[in-house]
């Protein structure tokens, strides 16, 4: 009940950044099937940048603001999310995502060092809003398959695809 009230308050009044509660994050040891060794610093950067991308994702889908995605998403992921935001805008809805827990594991680092794959067992609430009216809320537990590629300054999400457990 309190959670619903908080979500409602967030949707009504408070900026997304304030309402975004920090999700719990667990990083499991890598289970790599690529041949390239993963340096601890690389792992730290990838996890940091991926979690940052969730912030951008939340903001973009809540505010229907595709520009919020530009720094963290590229390729297919950017195209899909941008398309979804356009569709949401057309329908007059927006979606409030609240990620509660991430359980991350890096599972592939390509031999050329140009892509990294993460599996994220994530718990989040998806709340669909029309203006200030809540159309529906659904808690979701999903397995996200995420591929990140390096840009000049950070790792960017190129594939962002949820699958069943």
């Amino acid at each position, binding site marked *: 009940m309190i959670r619903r009230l908080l979500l409602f308050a967030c949707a009504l009044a408070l900026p997304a950044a304030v309402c975004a509660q920090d999700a719990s994050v667990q990083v499991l040891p890598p289970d790599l099937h690529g041949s390239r060794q993963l340096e601890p610093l690389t792992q730290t950067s990838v996890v940091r940048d991926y979690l940052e991308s969730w912030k951008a994702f939340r903001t973009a889908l809540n505010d229907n603001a595709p520009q919020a995605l530009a720094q963290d998403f590229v390729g297919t992921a950017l195209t899909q999310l941008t398309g979804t935001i356009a569709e949401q805008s057309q329908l007059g809805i927006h979606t409030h995502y609240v990620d509660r827990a991430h359980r991350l594991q890096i599972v592939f680092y390509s*031999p*050329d060092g140009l892509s990294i794959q993460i599996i994220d067992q994530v718990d989040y609430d998806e709340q*669909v809003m029309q203006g200030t009216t809540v159309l529906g809320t659904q808690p979701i537990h999903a397995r996200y398959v995420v591929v990140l590629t390096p840009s000049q300054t950070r790792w960017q999400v190129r594939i962002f*695809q*949820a699958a069943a457990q």
Partner: protein
Amino acid sequence: MRLRPWFLLAGLASIAGPLLLAQSPAMNLPAQVVAGGALSIPTSGSGQGTLTIVGPGQALRRTVQLGSPVSLAAGVLFNAGEYVAILSSGSDEQVAQFEVTPAPKPAKLSFLAEPSRLPVDLENGVSGTVYVFDVYHNLILSPTPVSFNLSDSSGPSQTRTATSRDGVAWTRMNSASKEGSAHFVAQVGAVTATRVVDEVPGDPCNLSMTATPDSGKAKLQTAPVRDCSGNPIPDGTIVTFTASFNGKQSTVDVPLKKDIAEVEMPLPAGATISVASGVVAGNEIHWSGR
């Protein structure tokens, strides 16, 4: 004042009647739908409703006649992922979750071969990484066999097979012993992707020179410079001749021309001459002047 029982019953019926008669909207949603597939969702209830489907991949809405199935044509819902479906009518709603799975048939490969240029005869020198997608560019997560083939113009081709895990497969191959363009092909079923890998000669092998007197100077000339597989080293590759005498050194860099590097150097008798190319050192000659 006492209320009569029939009056109480009538009052309750007037309040609860509409609630009991109205049927809340409900739908029977499958847990999984294949990307791009047609979808028919049976609904119950009466009157008109709205079906809203939203996920990170897509958002869409349909007006629904409750009690009749709502249909989504093939190709409408095509991005794989988790979705929330909300069937609403008035203030009533039913919320459900379902998954759109990738289409099972591979349609596109994202194939990266690295490096695009490498020396011949290098063990595990070239790597290939493949991501397997369906026609809607969803990553196919089920294990899929991927065949890799590296063939050059001369030798037998190498073939490796790997099974994708969460949509990705990779391999390493040796470069061929002959220089030239090699074709690196990844194949899943009938879908192929080809990359061209330039295989170039390796470092010089068995670098050697001779020194002969010529008009008071020493004429230094290498034997034809080749790599360890016998491929000629490209013209323009620098060969360095170094002469040492009484603690002093003089050096001449000469580009290869038609496999050979040659130069004339004024050398005193007793000088030591060496030859090298890159990190490869050749033979040494003690110059007697004759």
